[in-house]
């Protein structure tokens, strides 16, 4: 730094000197250059002395530094080693905790489907969600005036429970919930369902109660094609499989046939009993 300042100084003076040279009558700037140069020389000597002193200081300092650096480095190393070790330990997933997290995740990731309801069966008895507790339930939302998909789905449900009973020896409660309670009176439901399988429970109720359960199970329904008193209901033809704790385990669309449906249900039952 000092050297560079020196160079800059001499340069400036050199320049000024050269610019003043054509007028030799003026000797003032030249003299100043000489005096400055002299003073600079003394300062340089001072600096050399200071550097020597500081070198001595550094030597003694570096020796005392070692006493601090080595223990600190050791401490940092030991700390890093313990941190890495504990981190590894924390990240190790033991077998049982893995199981726990999987079941927990299944519970968390389950869609918020289902809820309490209050409906009437074909005999006029009150049926609530607590009546389904303890049994596997297959739930279908439909209506008896459905032209083609509805009867097919109910037939599929009847075939499915037959297969489950004969092949796997397991009983499942099939439930048909009407989404057209205005037309589907208990007598109508009874006449309709007993043609498929008398074990299928038909549920109906006041419009508000039906709307409530349809919304709880995310069932879409809409009155379409009104011709006079007659109408169709556009709806989602999904079947819901409920486990004994009333959790919705799976939902089956129209793409399943009876044997696929029963196999899928059986797989779920096996998974739950494990």
């Amino acid at each position: 730094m000092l050297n560079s300042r020196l160079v800059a100084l001499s340069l400036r003076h050199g320049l000024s000197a050269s610019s003043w040279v054509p007028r030799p009558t003026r000797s003032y700037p030249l003299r100043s250059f000489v005096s400055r140069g002299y003073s600079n020389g003394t300062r340089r000597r001072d600096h050399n002395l200071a550097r020597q002193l500081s070198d001595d200081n550094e030597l003694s300092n570096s020796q005392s530094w070692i006493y601090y650096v080595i223990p600190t480095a050791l401490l940092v190393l030991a700390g890093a080693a313990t941190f890495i070790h504990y981190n590894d330990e924390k990240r190790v997933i033991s077998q049982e905790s893995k199981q726990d997290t999987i079941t927990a995740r299944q519970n968390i990731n389950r869609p918020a489907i289902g809820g309490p309801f209050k409906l009437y069966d074909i005999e006029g008895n009150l049926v609530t969600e607590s009546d389904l507790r303890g049994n596997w339930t297959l739930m279908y939302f439909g209506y008896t005036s459905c032209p083609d998909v509805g009867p097919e789905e109910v037939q599929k449900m009847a075939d499915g429970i037959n297969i489950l009973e004969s092949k796997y020896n397991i009983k499942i409660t099939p439930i048909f919930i009407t989404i057209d309670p205005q037309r589907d009176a208990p007598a109508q439901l009874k006449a309709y369902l007993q043609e498929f399988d008398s074990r299928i429970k038909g549920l109906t109720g006041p419009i508000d109660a039906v709307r409530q359960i349809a919304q709880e199970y995310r069932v879409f329904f809409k009155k379409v094609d009104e011709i006079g008193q007659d109408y169709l209901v556009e709806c989602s033809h999904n079947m819901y499989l409920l486990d004994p704790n009333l959790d919705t385990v799976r939902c089956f669309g129209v793409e399943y046939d009876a044997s696929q449906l029963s196999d899928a249900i059986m797989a779920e039952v096996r998974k739950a009993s494990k």
Partner: protein
Amino acid sequence: MADGAVMTDVLAQGRAACYKARDAFYACLERESDKKPTEIATVGLLYPAECKKSRADFVANCRPTWVKHFDRQYCAKKRVQRLLDNDESRRGPISLPQPYTFKP
């Protein structure tokens, strides 16, 4: 709907009769497809006069909403088949003659 009054036309027998009449009508429609369709069904579907009888049977055996539903289903099926058709001229959207093209 009053309690006890059961709508029998949606029960198994009624359904079977309706499906039978429906299938007969659409079979007639396929069979007579070379005839000029003049009569009007529900959702813009046209059928030739030769199928009038089976159409009447179909309408008599099914609810009006069901008839409409099946007609709509049939039209949708025909539309899809048109797109899948091997005959190049019949595939894709219909190209209509342009009424006027500007020529300088």
